[in-house]
Structures are given as structure tokens and as C-alpha cells.
């Protein structure tokens, strides 16, 4: 006579309900293993999702063209007209640029000896730079038409830290070149233009007027030259723009122009984040194996202790198969309880960490479904020998105990 499912479930849970602490402890190993695996898979997926979302926000259509080295090995320069020429390309949406003001150093006060450099680069920047490189302001405000002509600077995220700025208050200054520059704001980290992080940015007119950053164009002195162009291309025509960018920026010596697509590095990193941490995964698997041995051990002890129950059930009409099923189901119940708790713990860990990082929470179906499935399989394997032993027990021998 087949047992109904509800009866089967109740019979399978007899042992678990009778010894809750023991059940808890024996399921713990499985729970830890599954939790580790779910958390590892969930965190790697979530961090990848976070990075992909970031890439999406930043866009993959930004190209940079910078003055590399000339054939002779000197620092090359881009022509003064390069931004305008590149901007004239049909497929180019916008162009921003910076010019390296070499020889200018920045300090918090004039008292620091000039020899102690702090690896902060002073750059002249076009006013549209933040929008083109998709970098926002962490503090204060960006340059405008007026402040671009004044001794006013905006600090990159790293530069601000090095100079000891946490927040921007009116009247704060840095000693730049040989005079005070007011600090207007601090940039956020620029993921697509990380060179800006360690920069102090001023307007081109200010660079010309106060730092003597001049280029000669058509015989007249003008601010410049640009060192790096930041080019937003139409998304479908990035490759086309990339192909002609060097030629357009510097027709006379295109091979002195370095072209790059900064989102490439991020995309590569995203692919790497998707690969999970195999050390933790390995630890999870070890915990599962230890948990399986623990469950098998507990089940064997349980069968020994419950001989009279087994004998009684046979006397009440249980078949060998029903006894076997009972103990197999009990082992699976234990591991599935552990597995479910593990999935919950792994998911909670993922949610907490991902939200902390501002990532979208992604727990792959394979992670939680796999965790539960692994628990079922482990329970079946761990419970097999004890269950067969219970079923083979002769009922009269089982009843003779006590």
C-alpha cells in the first residue's frame, strides 16, 4: 500500500522533529557549503552587473587621441586646430580636450619646497570636459566662461585627496605655479579618463594668462596646445572615427597620435568579474562534502537508535521499501533544510554586499537552483546506506531491542 505524500512527508520528518538540535547541526555543513557557493556566484554576477551598468552609463563611444612621442623621442604636440578639425567629422558628437601644463606644480601652501613633487599634473581643460568624459562633480562646481579666465582650479578626485581637500568651502586656495588659485570644485572619479583624477584643471584662458601656457597659431600667441582629445563618436561609427582620428587630429604626423578606447579596459574587467572566485567555491564544495559525511553519520546513528521504531513500523504494515524511503527522505529533508538555509544566507550576503556597492542584485538561477539540487543529491547519497540498512533490518530483531 503506497503512503500518501502528506503521510510520507510526516513520516520523513519524524526524526528531524524529534531531535531538532541534532538536525540543525547536521544540516549546518550543507548550509555553509551552499551559502558559500550561492554567495560567490551571486557576488560575481552582481559585481559584473554593476560594472556593466557603469559601462552603460559611461558609454563605449568615447575615444581619446593624445600626443604620443615624436619620431625623435621628444614629447609630441597636437596641433592647436586639432579639436576643431575632429569636431568637424560627421560621426563625431562632441570633442573636449586638455592641455598638459608642464612645469607647473600644485601645493596646498607656498611653504612646501618646490622639489617635493606630488605627481599632480596641471592641465588646461575645455569647458565641456566633464560632460564628454561623463564625470560629475563630487564637490562645488565646474569652471564656467568667467572662472575659466580667472585663477580658479578644479581638483581631480585623487589630486584633492593628495592636497588634503575633503570638501570645498569658499575662499579655499591652492598654490599653483607661483600664485594662489581658488578651488571651485572637486571632480568625481572619472572612470573613462582616470588621468584626470590626479590632475588639477584650470581654464585655457587662465592657463595662458597665469601660467604662460601658449601656442603660436597663425603667428599669434593663443592658449594651448591641446595634449589629449576626448571624442564622443556616434555609437555605430566608433570604429570609423577611430580609423581616421589620428589623421584628422594631426595630418602632418598621424603616427605621433595615440588613439585609445577607454571603455575597453572596463569591458575587460567586467568579463573578469564574471569569473567567480574559485578559492571560495572550492571551500564551499569542501563544506558540502564534510556536510554530506556528517549527514550520513547522523543517519547511521539514527537507524541504530530507532530500531524499535523500525520494528514497530514493520509490524504496523510498512514494507521494506517504505522503511527505506522513510530514511532516505529524512536524509534528503535534512540536506534540503540545510540547502535552503544556505541559499537564503548566500542571497542575503549577496543583497547586503551588492546594495552596499550600489550594484543591481543578481543571483543566477543556476546558483540557487543548483544549491537546492546539490542538497537533494547529497541527501540521497548520504542517506542511501543508512536507509538500506534500516530496510534490511529483520523486524523481529528490531523489536527485540530494549
Amino acid at each position: 500500500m503506497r503512503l500518501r505524500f502528506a503521510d510520507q512527508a510526516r513520516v520523513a520528518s519524524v526524526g528531524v522533529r524529534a531531535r531538532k538540535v541534532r538536525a540543525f547541526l547536521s544540516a549546518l555543513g550543507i548550509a555553509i557549503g551552499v551559502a558559500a557557493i550561492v554567495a560567490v556566484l551571486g557576488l560575481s554576477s552582481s559585481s559584473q552587473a554593476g560594472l556593466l551598468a557603469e559601462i552603460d552609463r559611461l558609454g563605449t563611444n568615447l575615444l581619446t587621441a593624445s600626443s604620443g612621442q615624436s619620431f625623435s623621442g621628444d614629447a609630441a604636440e597636437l596641433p592647436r586646430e586639432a579639436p576643431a578639425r575632429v569636431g568637424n567629422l560627421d560621426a563625431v558628437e562632441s570633442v573636449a580636450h586638455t592641455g598638459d601644463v608642464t612645469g607647473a606644480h600644485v601645493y596646498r601652501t607656498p611653504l612646501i619646497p618646490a622639489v617635493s613633487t606630488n605627481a599632480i599634473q596641471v592641465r588646461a581643460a575645455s569647458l565641456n570636459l566633464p560632460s564628454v568624459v561623463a564625470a560629475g562633480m563630487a564637490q562645488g562646481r565646474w569652471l564656467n566662461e568667467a572662472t575659466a579666465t580667472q585663477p580658479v582650479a578644479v581638483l581631480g578626485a585623487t589630486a584633492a585627496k593628495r592636497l588634503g581637500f575633503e570638501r570645498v568651502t569658499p575662499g579655499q586656495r591652492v598654490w599653483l605655479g607661483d600664485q594662489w588659485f581658488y578651488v571651485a570644485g572637486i571632480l568625481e572619479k572619472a572612470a573613462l579618463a582616470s588621468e584626470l583624477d590626479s590632475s588639477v584643471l584650470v581654464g585655457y584662458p587662465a592657463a595662458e594668462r597665469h601660467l604662460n601656457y601658449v601656442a603660436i597659431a597663425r603667428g599669434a600667441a593663443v592658449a594651448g596646445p591641446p595634449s589629449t582629445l576626448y571624442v564622443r563618436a556616434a555609437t555605430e561609427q566608433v570604429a570609423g572615427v577611430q580609423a581616421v582620428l589620428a589623421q584628422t587630429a594631426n595630418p602632418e604626423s598621424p603616427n605621433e597620435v595615440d588613439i585609445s578606447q577607454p571603455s575597453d579596459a572596463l569591458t575587460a574587467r567586467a568579463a573578469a568579474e564574471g569569473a567567480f572566485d574559485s578559492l571560495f567555491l572550492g571551500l564551499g564544495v569542501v563544506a558540502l562534502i564534510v556536510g554530506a559525511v556528517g549527514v550520513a553519520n547522523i543517519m547511521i546513528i539514527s537507524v541504530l537508535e530507532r530500531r524499535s521504531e523500525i520494528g514497530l513500523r514493520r509490524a504496523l504494515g510498512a514494507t521494506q521499501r517504505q522503511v527505506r524511503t522513510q530514511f532516505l527522505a529524512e536524509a534528503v529533508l535534512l540536506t534540503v533544510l540545510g540547502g535552503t538555509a544556505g541559499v537564503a544566507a548566500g542571497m542575503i550576503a549577496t543583497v547586503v554586499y551588492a546594495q552596499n556597492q550600489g550594484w543591481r542584485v543578481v543571483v543566477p538561477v543556476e546558483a540557487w537552483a543548483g544549491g537546492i539540487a546539490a542538497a537533494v543529491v547529497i541527501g540521497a547519497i548520504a542517506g542511501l546506506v543508512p536507509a538500506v540498512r534500516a530496510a534490511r533490518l529483520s523486524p523481529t530483531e528490531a523489536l527485540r531491542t530494549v
Partner: protein
Amino acid sequence: MILELAGVTKTYGDVAVLRGIDLRVDEGELVAIVGPSGSGKSTLLHVMGTLERPSGGQVRIRGVDVAGLSDERLADVRARDIGFVFQQFFLSAHATAAENVADGMLYAGVDARTRRRRAAEALDRVGLAHRANFRPAKLSGGERQRVAIARALVGRPAIVLADEPTGNLDSATGGAIVTLLHELHASGATILVITHDHDLASRMPRQVQVLDGRIVGDSHATALR
């Protein structure tokens, strides 16, 4: 004829525990099997209850020779036709009296609702309706054995086999259990009680004496003769 044994033997290795048992039990009988410890009474009960297969001879339950039945079919016979009562009660400590009794029909293919209803009836029959929701730990020894008897009866088996049902009880409580068995017998149940206690056996309508695996006396057979 509920139960019929013909030339039943049981040997363990070269130890012959049962040496040719012939016994017939009719519907509605109350039979005591009495004999000293080690004479093979429990083994006989196990063979009659299909928990153990005989080494030789025939066991018929309601006319069916159980020798040819598979494990599944034997289990079915136990689930429907036989109720067991043991000296040690064998109640589940984690279930109430009613749940313990209902489990008597767990393997008989009866739905849970019917099991609960029949358990309540059976508890009432053994005078424990007021203890239905007690766990065994809260019951006296006599009450526990009543629960076990209710569990044996709940499926309305053809025969109840009781192995030393008063063995763990003091004499007054044991006497009350014997009275209960009489009442159940009076209301139609077929009951076979194993005991080493001659006083107890003498209160039964029929006594079968066992010694060294043989039947050495049967009051019923004498009466018939």
C-alpha cells in the same frame, strides 16, 4: 478460521525454536499461549504475525497460505489483518495518544481523516478518550498499554497478537488490562495473548501450553475431545 498453523517449525542455525506447532484459532476467540521463558512463545507470535517466515510447515491467515507471499503482500497482511501489542508498548514519544493510535492504520491505505476518527473511537473503546491529546510521557504504564491496544485494534484486524502485554505492569494494572482484553473479546475481537503467567492465562477462556517449541496442552482441544 482466522489462523491456522500446521507443523510449523522455526530454526535459527541449528537451534530449533519451534518444533512442529499445530494450532487453529477461530474468529472471536480469546486464547492464552502460556509457557516458561525461552519456550518459543515470542517466536511463535512473530511467525503467526508474518514478521518471521517459518522454516517449515504452513501458516494460514484467513485461509491464505502466507508462505508464497512477497514482502509487500506480507506487509499488507500485517497492515490489514493483524494487530500487535508488545510488552514495551513501542509508542512514539513525540506523538499524542490519538496520533499513536491513528498510526495503527498508517500503512493500510486509509486517509488521514478516517484514521483520526477511528483513532478517537478506538481510544474511547479502551477508556482513554480523555487522554487523546496526551503524549506517552504524561501517561501511566497502564494507560500506555491501553493506547498500544487501541493502536492494534484501530484497523479492525482479524486478530490481535499480544506478547506479554502485562509484562511491564504491576499486577493491579495488568489485571485491568486483562479485563480490557475480556471486554474487547466480548465485543467480538479475536485476541491471542502470550504470557508466562499461569494465573493470567487461567483467566482466559482457552489456554495453550508451550514448552521447548512444542504445544504440550490445549484446553480447547481437551474440551472438544
